[in-house]
């Protein structure tokens, strides 16, 4: 199973609803984030300019480097769901996972002294019934959640539909080695050119 997010950048307006929903649902302190939105661009020369918004959070890598460096097994990939999680009871706050994460999307909670990250709202989604708060509250309908190994999931259907329209519209964040980030971004050339390393 490979549960993850599929984010349609053709639809994302950069409104930060996903960020607010995440902070509210997970009780994240002021100044801390589990997800953010990166503005990419504008690029080009007027009037031929383009820009898109890139929502970022844990990419749920299939070969997570954060898990490999963790000395206590606190960071782990749930084999049942494919979601990368942190067992807060085991985390010793050494922050090696933060150094090893290629995307800088983990934070140290200075109150609890443990490392935190997007869990895909596992308290809502672990039993397969709910969806993450960021997906539920996306006012542009740009976020999909599901198992990419299940062709009937919302995530798989969104990817299939995008590929049917434009075979070059499906992207992942650049991979520095063999992390294999699972999160999928849909961006067609009619919106903007995918910038990769932003």
């Amino acid at each position: 199973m490979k549960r993850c997010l599929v984010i349609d950048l053709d639809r994302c307006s950069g409104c930060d609803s996903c960020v607010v929903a995440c902070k509210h649902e997970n009780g994240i302190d002021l100044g801390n984030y589990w997800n953010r939105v990166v503005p990419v661009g504008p690029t080009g020369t007027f009037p031929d300019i383009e820009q898109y918004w890139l929502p970022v959070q844990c990419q749920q890598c299939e070969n997570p480097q954060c898990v490999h460096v963790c000395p206590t097994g606190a960071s782990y990939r749930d084999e049942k769901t494919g979601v990368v999680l942190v067992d807060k009871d085991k985390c010793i706050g050494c922050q090696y996972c933060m150094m090893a994460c290629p995307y800088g999307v983990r934070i140290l909670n200075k109150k609890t002294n443990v490392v935190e990250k997007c869990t895909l709202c596992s308290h809502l989604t672990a039993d397969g019934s709910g969806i993450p708060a960021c997906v539920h509250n996306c006012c542009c309908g740009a976020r999909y959640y599901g198992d990419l190994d299940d062709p009937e999931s919302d995530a798989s259907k969104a990817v299939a539909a995008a590929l049917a329209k434009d075979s070059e519209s499906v992207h992942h964040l650049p991979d520095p080695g063999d992390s294999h980030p699972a999160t999928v971004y849909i961006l067609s050339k009619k919106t903007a050119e995918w910038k990769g390393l932003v």
Partner: protein
Amino acid sequence: MSIQWPLLVFSLLTGSGGALLAFTGVAEATGVAKKTRNAAVACALVLLVVGGCASVVHLAQPANIMAAAANVFSFSGISVELIMLGVNVIVGVAYLIASRKEASSSVMRGIAVVGVIAGVVMTFVVGNGYVMQSQPNWNTVLLPLAYMGSGLACGGALYCAIMAAFKEDIAEFKLVGVVAIVAIVIQLAACAAYGAVVASAIDAALYWGGCVGVGSVVALACAIFARKTPLAWWAVFAAALVGGIALRAAMWLAGTGFIDMFSLAAGRAVLGV
């Protein structure tokens, strides 16, 4: 990335301590500097223990080290450092006990050989934990090799400095002094190679001035001078220590990550937060 001082102190002290143990092993195996050996091993143990304590300060709670110790066989970078720290301490204590009980020369040489291997491995593993694909400026074997060179240079210089403090005969310095000079040359080569690979990302003044200039070139010049004036080994040690600090500080400052998305988002946000 900001300089993580507890980790800098940890890798500098434990690397130097391991190398000091290795140099004691060299002296034992070759039968020189007899007056110095026990004091050097005691000093190595202090460095290893104080360095280990420094790493604990980096954790969110010092007591969390027990959780790391309980998972020592996870063989992550931190676990391997802990294992080697334990091995070096055990070898050092075994050496002191064997020496006190006047064990046979074959036993002492056996411990010495294990000490050389454990000490050299220690200098390498304290840098090897940082080799990770998410950190392009650390992701090369030249980084742990530079750490190894730094540890050996510090440990070798310190061993000779302790020899000078114990007023060992100048003839006793001949072999150990040459090995210590070779260690500084290894440091110079490894640090120059690492610096050349990450030249565009590294703080040039700090790295080339502090690590390569003071830590290797000045240390080498002092070491050549020290062959006739043994007390100058303290200057070699001081220079190597400055080089070791500069190497580690420059590494942390060059740790930019592959893509730091959250920082990027903050930097491009309207309010910059």
